[in-house]
């Protein structure tokens, strides 16, 4: 009875896994299929040859893939660094100091948690326009750095576990506040920083809405908006599209495989919030 039960559970786990792997396999197979193979309508069949690369060639040729990856990298680099610096500064001040405006600031930051980002875009759009950064890489960068505040909470929460006695000891030795932040607080925050960085990298890499809205120019496509240009108004050719889907999926999968541990701990941390 017990063995039967176990077998049943493993069978169930196997079929559920299949539910999550099969779509990716189908896309993988399709990306190596020629137009003639595609027309056979056999999505589960292996391609005639895994060396048929012309879908990938076409995608790289037409898609401006290099530029898109470059743009995404710039956005990621600037917003990750910006978020970590500004987020840790705010967390340091809010976590280590008492001052009158503190409750007000905490309250004000709550607003971003309540108001769905997608709604304010209507009003934000004209502001970005007026600042003269519309259709430049600066627009998404400013928005990512300025509007995302989740890292403040993650840093604040983590900093509670850091002993305050270290700050005091440094203070007795005459270190300035800035020095304590820079030499003690920030380095001790490293585990949280790693988590914030990885979640932020994934977030920016995957965000389609903001780049689509604020950077319509073709040379400002990011990895996430790359595929939109591929649909056009004619029928989608799924073998080309599959190659594109895979090209932009592979980096996420690599990041996931390498940094899984931090991602899971970050999710747990976020959930506690």
């Amino acid at each position, binding site marked *: 009875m017990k063995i039967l039960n176990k077998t049943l559970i493993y069978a169930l786990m196997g079929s559920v896994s299949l539910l999550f792997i099969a779509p990716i396999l189908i896309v993988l197979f399709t990306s190596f299929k020629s137009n003639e193979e595609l027309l056979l309508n056999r999505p589960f069949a292996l391609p005639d040859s895994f060396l048929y690369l012309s879908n990938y060639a076409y995608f790289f040729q037409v898609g401006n893939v290099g530029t898109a990856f470059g743009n995404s990298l710039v956005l990621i680099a600037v917003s990750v660094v910006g978020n970590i610096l500004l987020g840790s500064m705010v967390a340091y001040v809010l976590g280590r100091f008492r001052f009158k405006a503190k409750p007000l600031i905490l309250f004000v930051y709550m607003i971003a948690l309540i108001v769905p980002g997608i709604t304010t875009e209507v009003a934000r759009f004209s502001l970005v326009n007026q600042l003269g950064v519309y259709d430049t890489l600066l627009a998404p960068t400013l928005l990512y750095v300025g509007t995302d505040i989740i890292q403040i909470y993650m840093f604040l929460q983590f900093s509670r576990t850091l002993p305050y006695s270290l700050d005091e000891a440094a203070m007795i030795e005459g270190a300035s506040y800035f020095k304590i932040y820079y030499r003690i607080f920030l380095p001790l925050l490293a585990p949280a920083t790693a988590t914030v960085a990885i979640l932020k990298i994934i977030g920016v890499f*995957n965000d389609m809405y903001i780049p689509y809205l604020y950077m319509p120019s073709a040379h400002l496509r990011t990895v996430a908006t790359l595929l939109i240009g591929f649909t056009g108004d004619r029928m989608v050719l799924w073998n080309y599209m599959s190659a594109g889907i895979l090209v932009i999926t592979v980096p996420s999968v690599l990041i996931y495989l390498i940094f899984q541990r931090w991602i899971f701990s970050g999710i747990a941390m976020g959930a506690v919030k």
Partner: protein
Amino acid sequence: MSLQMKKRVFVSSFLLVPLALYAMFVLYPTFKLFQLSFTDWNGLDGAKWIGLDNYREVVQSREVWVSLRNNLIYFLTGLVGVAFSLFLAVLLTGKLRFAKGFRSIVFAPFILNATAVSFMFGFLYETESGAINVALRALGLGFLEQRWLSDASVVNVSLALIVVWKTVGFYMVILIATLQSIPEDLYEAAVIDGAGKWQSFRFITLPCISDIVKLSVFLVFTGSVQTFEQPFLLTGQGGPGYASMTFALYSVHEAFQFSRYGLASAMAVVLIAIVLVVQLTQHILVREKGDNHEDFK
């Protein structure tokens, strides 16, 4: 400089840039949104004050109600997803081989690019060549075939299932984390008292995870009222007709396609109000149980 003064200078200097950016890109647009919602601003000319006209139009518009109904479908489908996540999470807490590998596989879609995932399902849902219909035909279940993305009666569920596929692993992971934090001896004591499997689940597991389940339900809710990408990418912005239009997509549509920023702003305000009401309700529900929500007050 006195210590007090030093502290004040330091605190202000550290808060200056982050708060300035925040005020500019979050507070000001939110304020502006409320203001614009009472005008007929078209993005260019001076805006004229039109009172509650936009709100009247929002309430009377058929498309808005269709959109809201569709958002509700995303919510309900999402709830089924959370139930499935809970089922998987409970399954995985038993001592099983491959549990880690299984968790990694189920979670993976959560970090994949949403655009890529949407298009992937666009392919799977194709009527003739799509894997789902092909598989149904091969299994002799051809009568279950659907025009997944062009039949008005199934399109929303099809799109909502994409979200479920992408997020099941996320909810599973946070539920597993919570389940693992339940002390083992509670279950042992229950067994000694003669409790069966179902009773242990009902009287120990469920109460211990109720807060995180509520959080999940809330996350599903905020996610579903903001649904945008799937219909935007896959059904030609809400088609067929308005059948898969969502609230967020419709407001973006009104703003950037028809330059009706006033109306779109009013819709945004309504959305904020909806989220706020639900959030308050959730807060009260969680508070009731005397839970420690001291963080960030």
